[in-house]
């Protein structure tokens, strides 16, 4: 051993937070600590996966640490082995083995059969595992020395003495010395080498507490209940080298072996040796890709840009330029494969739509979104539906000379088409060649409070209250606790103190593996050889173990097939219109300048529309007043963190008003810009940056950024921690601006706007695509409102509002809603006599299956005639609670009895719960229609408030109106209705009350909370500043009905209430006249006897507000 090596050691067994509740440090922290201690190499061996390995390998490089790729694999008997990739073949085998571990076992309990490892270990170095779970130590402990020797001999025979190592650990656990002695002795006897490892689970000692909590969570118990499974001490951290050397001073060879193994593993570098290739397009054997792509595009050019078109010449120039760029980057095949996939999507759409009227609606199978919409090649191939020439879309955001990663092409599909398309992609390319991209939801304050609180065995009610009332984005729980009613002082109390510390430590760590919304990776080489695959929570879905950033680093081609609820809605709406009118409308040929549509949009009447319905959008729309598609694109883009943080909103609105006045006066309008160099790129958005692509254009125009610099900036924008990455460009920007004679103050001001786009922002192409869909949704709603609302209901959940709020918007727009009816409703909502009939599937306790079976029975054998008839013929799986729920909401009113009488009869027909047999109801009387002596007892009908409560309890929404309409006379007389706010002067004090429909605390609002409070006449926007929020937090965050006292603010066409006080709405204690005397059974709810009681009952059944932030 070389003298320098005497103080050297490589850690070969290390878990990061990507061991999911078995590692308390992110890979970065482990690397930083290893660098601090002078480690030459570090292996990342997370449990059954390599989730963080590529990011780890990239991060290790600048630190000069050799990253070794590996994993701790769980075998079928529950023991573990450490596998390290020595060679590219070894890595391939590692990926395949990890895939088998996951796909061949229960999703949440991955296991690898020994035989699989024995068949596929070439290129792998295998360590015998940790003290607690390792294969060899466990065998030694459970089965004795002979069995352990036999196992060691077998491992040597199968894997080879140069590939299988006996792992020894010294974590100061009692028995370590005896165990390691026994293992070393065994290794010597059998002719194997021993290797020292640390079994590292965190980078710093004090994180042992967080690790203890994670172990408790993993075993679904408390800290007290997890004593046997937790580590006995805090010695599983990444030690300084001298400590390791001292621990193993009696076996220095075991330490030296770590360096030998690390050196061997240099043969494989994950950042370099992956070997990914994109699949070939169809027809690759007939012509080379650049030629095939050029031919395809030119063939379609005439159709899109005829010879006499104004845009023909620029289109030809643009096409040639793009083809040159694409060929330069060797991406021709990539575009052609996308084209193949879109053709596949067309086939899928045809199959899905077959037999339906929408089949002739000229609907695209899907639509492009994002920066790809700016490409003319995408437009000609059909991947985009927006003309990039006519709309002056900037290509640089999508494609440029110095492109460092593969461009993203995102495609939106209706839900059902997307589901089928994903299945067909698997079929076409093979299950081993396709995988969905994963994502890693991380711990945030609320999840941290809930889970750690349970591990600490804190009272569940209190944990839940803190989780609900605390600001989810707060940095520090201690400060939050101080502000919560009843929790001041808790931050120093036992257990709560620990909760605060641990919540801080766990924030940002990955919680579990989830599926990315739409990303798929396709590879010509089996994908399982490049990255392991595992089952997603959704059935039939398989995800790869890397998220989008790692897939990007690996230069995988990620295809984004996204499901867009609005596209499903449009499809269904078209179908319904066709049923009513005989032919479906062609949405590509409607009038895109219809003033009636824009009048409604500008009035803020946009609830239920695509992208422009949110509270913030409505506020903006009233100020900006869009009148064409380009304005709508601005609308879609401007209410995003990028423009908001960049300070673009107010200037834009002001200048728009100036522009309107100038045009009205017949003058031209020249928008001001921060510097003349920015005029070209910012003129169309009145001198402010609204789109992501403008960020690149600004950097090029003001600071002379090359395409390479712009490309690096573009990549930085889309990464995690983009703010820090983008801030790193300041020096280059400043220098470039200076060289162009731009004053530093101006450069700084403009750069601040550029940095703002590290927050979320849209490329113009994306905004244009979405703006178009927003208009089409508005058009459909305006001209075919009933069909639109039916489709809107049937495609929930989607959008900004609850179905309850959407229903009242329908009522305000003159759409009558009919409650579910056993003999009239379908499974889903339908159009009936120009009204919306709610479907049976919307009733609580009804599933799609039971609703479908009921409708089928009715259609086969005629309408249901009585309670008994219904009970006899209803599907067996339909439970009594479902039948009762339908009756409560009036679904059986057609039988001519009151709802109470109907419920009474159900009780006669069906036994109580305790006596039920195997089927859903356990019929008391079977086939014969026997009369019961008490069948004809009479009961009163439900009062209006009882009906409303029943609707909320069984549907989750009301079809009959707003709850406050029933208690209006019991509320304070000086409350102002929403419709009357317009008539008040700005600055007057006012009080409003209503149901909270939405609560928002946007990151860009610096702590201000926005409430959308709805009464019978409309929705009021309430602004709650931080001081008011702090005083009335419980009411602001938690009350479903609120009473707000404040001042009226009117500005630019918007009307808001600036809250000074927010409290729960109690109502006055005057009785609402009520004639009910009896109390119903425990399924239902207590019948109220006053407005106060009604509101109290409503609080229990009121729909949750949509909370954002």
């Amino acid at each position, binding site marked *: 051993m070389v003298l320098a090596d005497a103080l050297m050691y490589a850690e070969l067994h290390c878990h990061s937070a990507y061991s999911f509740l078995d590692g308390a440090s992110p890979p970065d922290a482990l690397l930083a600590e290893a660098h601090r201690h002078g480690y030459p190499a570090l292996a990342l061996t997370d449990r059954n996966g390599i989730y963080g390995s590529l990011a780890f390998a990239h991060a290790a490089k600048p630190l000069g640490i050799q990253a070794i790729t590996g994993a701790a694999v769980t075998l079928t008997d529950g023991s573990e082995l450490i596998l390290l990739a020595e060679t590219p073949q070894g890595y391939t085998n590692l990926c395949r083995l990890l895939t088998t571990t996951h796909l061949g076992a229960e999703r949440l309990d991955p296991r690898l059969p020994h035989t699989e490892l024995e068949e596929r270990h070439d290129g792998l170095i295998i360590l015998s595992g940790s003290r607690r779970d390792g294969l060899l130590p466990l065998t030694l402990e459970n089965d004795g020395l002979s069995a352990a020797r036999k196992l060691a001999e077998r491992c040597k025979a199968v894997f080879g003495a140069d590939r299988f190592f006996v792992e020894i650990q010294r974590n*100061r*656990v*009692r*028995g*370590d*010395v*005896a165990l390691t002695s026994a293992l070393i002795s065994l290794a010597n006897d059998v002719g194997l080498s021993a290797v020292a490892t640390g079994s590292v689970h965190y980078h710093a000692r004090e994180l*042992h*507490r967080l690790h*203890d909590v994670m172990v408790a969570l993993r075993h679904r118990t408390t*800290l007290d209940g997890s*004593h046997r499974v*937790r580590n*006995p*001490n*805090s*010695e599983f951290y990444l030690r300084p080298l001298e400590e390791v050397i001292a621990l193993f001073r009696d076996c220095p060879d075991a330490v030296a072996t770590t360096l030998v193994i690390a050196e061997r593993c240099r043969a494989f570098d994950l950042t370099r040796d992956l070997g990914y290739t994109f699949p070939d397009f169809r027809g690759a054997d007939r012509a080379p890709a650049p030629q095939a792509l050029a031919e395809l595009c030119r063939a379609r050019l005439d159709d899109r840009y005829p010879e006499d078109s104004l845009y023909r010449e620029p289109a030809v120039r643009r096409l040639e330029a793009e083809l040159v760029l694409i060929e330069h980057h060797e991406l021709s095949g990539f575009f052609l494969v996308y084209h193949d996939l879109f053709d596949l999507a067309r086939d899928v759409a045809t199959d899905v739509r077959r037999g339906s009227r929408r089949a002739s609606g000229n609907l695209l199978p899907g639509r492009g979104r994002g920066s790809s919409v700016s490409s003319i090649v995408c437009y000609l191939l059909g991947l985009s539906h927006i003309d990039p020439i006519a709309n002056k879309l900037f290509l640089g955001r999508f494609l440029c000379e110095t492109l460092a990663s593969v461009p993203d092409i995102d495609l939106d599909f209706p839900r059902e088409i997307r589901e089928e398309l994903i299945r067909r992609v698997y079929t076409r390319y093979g299950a081993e060649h396709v995988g969905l991209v994963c994502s890693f939801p991380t711990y945030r304050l609320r999840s941290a409070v809930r889970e750690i609180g349970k591990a*600490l065995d804190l009272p569940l009610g209190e944990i839940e209250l803190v989780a609900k009332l605390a600001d989810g984005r707060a940095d520090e729980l201690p400060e939050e606790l101080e502000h919560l009613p009843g929790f001041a002082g808790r931050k120093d109390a*036992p*257990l709560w103190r*620990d909760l605060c510390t641990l919540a801080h430590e766990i924030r940002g760590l990955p919680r579990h593996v989830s599926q990315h919304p739409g990303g798929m990776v396709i590879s010509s080489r089996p994908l399982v050889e490049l990255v392991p695959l595992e089952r997603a929570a959704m059935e039939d879905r398989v995800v790869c173990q890397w998220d989008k950033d790692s897939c990007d680093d690996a230069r995988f081609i990620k295809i984004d097939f996204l499901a867009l609820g609005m596209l499903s809605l449009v499809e269904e709406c078209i179908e319904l219109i066709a049923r009513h009118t005989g032919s479906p409308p062609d949405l590509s040929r409607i009038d895109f300048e219809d003033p009636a549509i824009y009048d409604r949009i500008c009035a803020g009447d946009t609830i239920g529309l695509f992208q422009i319905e949110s509270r913030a959008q409505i506020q903006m729309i009233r100020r900006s007043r869009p009148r064409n598609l380009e304005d709508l694109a601005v609308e879609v883009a401007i209410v995003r963190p990028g423009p908001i943080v960049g300070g673009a909103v107010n200037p834009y609105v002001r200048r728009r008003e100036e522009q309107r006045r100038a045009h009205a006066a017949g003058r031209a309008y020249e928008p001001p810009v921060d510097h003349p160099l920015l005029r070209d790129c910012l003129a169309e958005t009145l001198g402010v940056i609204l789109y992501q692509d403008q960020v690149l254009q600004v950097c090029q125009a003001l600071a002379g950024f090359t395409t390479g610099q712009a490309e690096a900036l573009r990549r930085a924008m889309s990464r995690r921690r983009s703010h820090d990455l983008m801030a790193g460009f300041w020096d280059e920007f400043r220098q470039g601006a200076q060289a162009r004679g731009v004053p530093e103050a101006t450069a700084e001001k403009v750069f601040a706007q550029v940095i703002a786009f590290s927050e979320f922002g849209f490329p113009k192409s994306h905004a244009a695509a979405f703006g178009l869909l927003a208009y089409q949704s508005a058009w459909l709603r305006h001209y075919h409102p009933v069909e639109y609302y039916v489709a809107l209901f049937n495609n929930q959940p989607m959008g900004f509002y609850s179905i309850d709020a959407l229903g009242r918007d329908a009522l305000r727009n003159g759409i009558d809603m009919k409650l579910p009816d056993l003999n009239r409703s379908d499974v889903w909502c339908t159009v009936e006599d120009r009204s919306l009939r709610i479907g049976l599937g919307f009733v609580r306790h009804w599933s799609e299956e039971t609703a479908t079976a009921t409708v089928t029975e009715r259609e086969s054998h005629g309408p249901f005639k009585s309670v008994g008839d219904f009970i006899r013929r209803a599907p067996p799986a339909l439970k009594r609670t479902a039948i009762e729920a339908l009756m409560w909401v009036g679904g059986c009113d057609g039988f001519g009895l009151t709802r109470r009488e109907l419920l009474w009869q159900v009780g006669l027909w069906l036994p109580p719960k305790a006596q039920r047999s195997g089927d859903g109801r356990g019929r008391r009387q079977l086939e014969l229609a026997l009369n019961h002596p008490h069948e004809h007892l009479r009961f009163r009908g439900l009062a209006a408030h009882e009906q409303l409560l029943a609707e909320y309890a069984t549907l989750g929404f009301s079809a009959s109106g707003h709850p406050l309409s029933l208690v209006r006379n019991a509320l304070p007389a000086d409350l102002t209705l929403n419709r009357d706010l317009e008539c008040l002067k700005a600055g007057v004090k006012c009080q409003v009350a209503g149901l909270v429909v939405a609560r928002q605390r946007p990151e860009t609002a610096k702590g201000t909370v926005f409430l959308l409070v709805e009464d019978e006449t409309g929705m009021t926007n309430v602004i709650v500043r931080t001081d008011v929020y702090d005083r009335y937090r419980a009411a602001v965050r938690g009350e479903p009905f609120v009473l707000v006292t404040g001042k009226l603010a009117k500005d630019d066409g918007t009307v808001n209430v600036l809250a000074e006080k927010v409290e729960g709405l109690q109502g006055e204690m005057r009785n609402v006249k009520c004639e009910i005397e009896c109390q119903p059974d425990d399924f239902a709810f207590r019948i109220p006897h006053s407005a106060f009681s009604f509101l109290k009952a409503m609080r229990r059944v009121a729909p949750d507000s949509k909370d954002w932030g």
Partner: protein
Amino acid sequence: MVAPARTPLRTDRLRAVNAPKPVALEWDASGVLSVSKVGKIEAILETWRIDDEWWRQPIARAYMEVMLEGGKRLVLFQDLITGEWFSQMP
């Protein structure tokens, strides 16, 4: 059938088994470590550490099992929070 014992149960007399006893460690003139009033330490057989109950009353202890002069074995531990030493039977 066992006849009831005449001696009544005295739960006030329950006591822990093998409760730790405070000890002092000292170095003698020849540099040998010994447990005060118990004996010289001839060999340290094993050392280990435990960390537990940090959410309640933290326990952080560094243990060592020692062989004393004469062959007797003893377990010593240092409370890492107070610094005090204790002994227990192995």
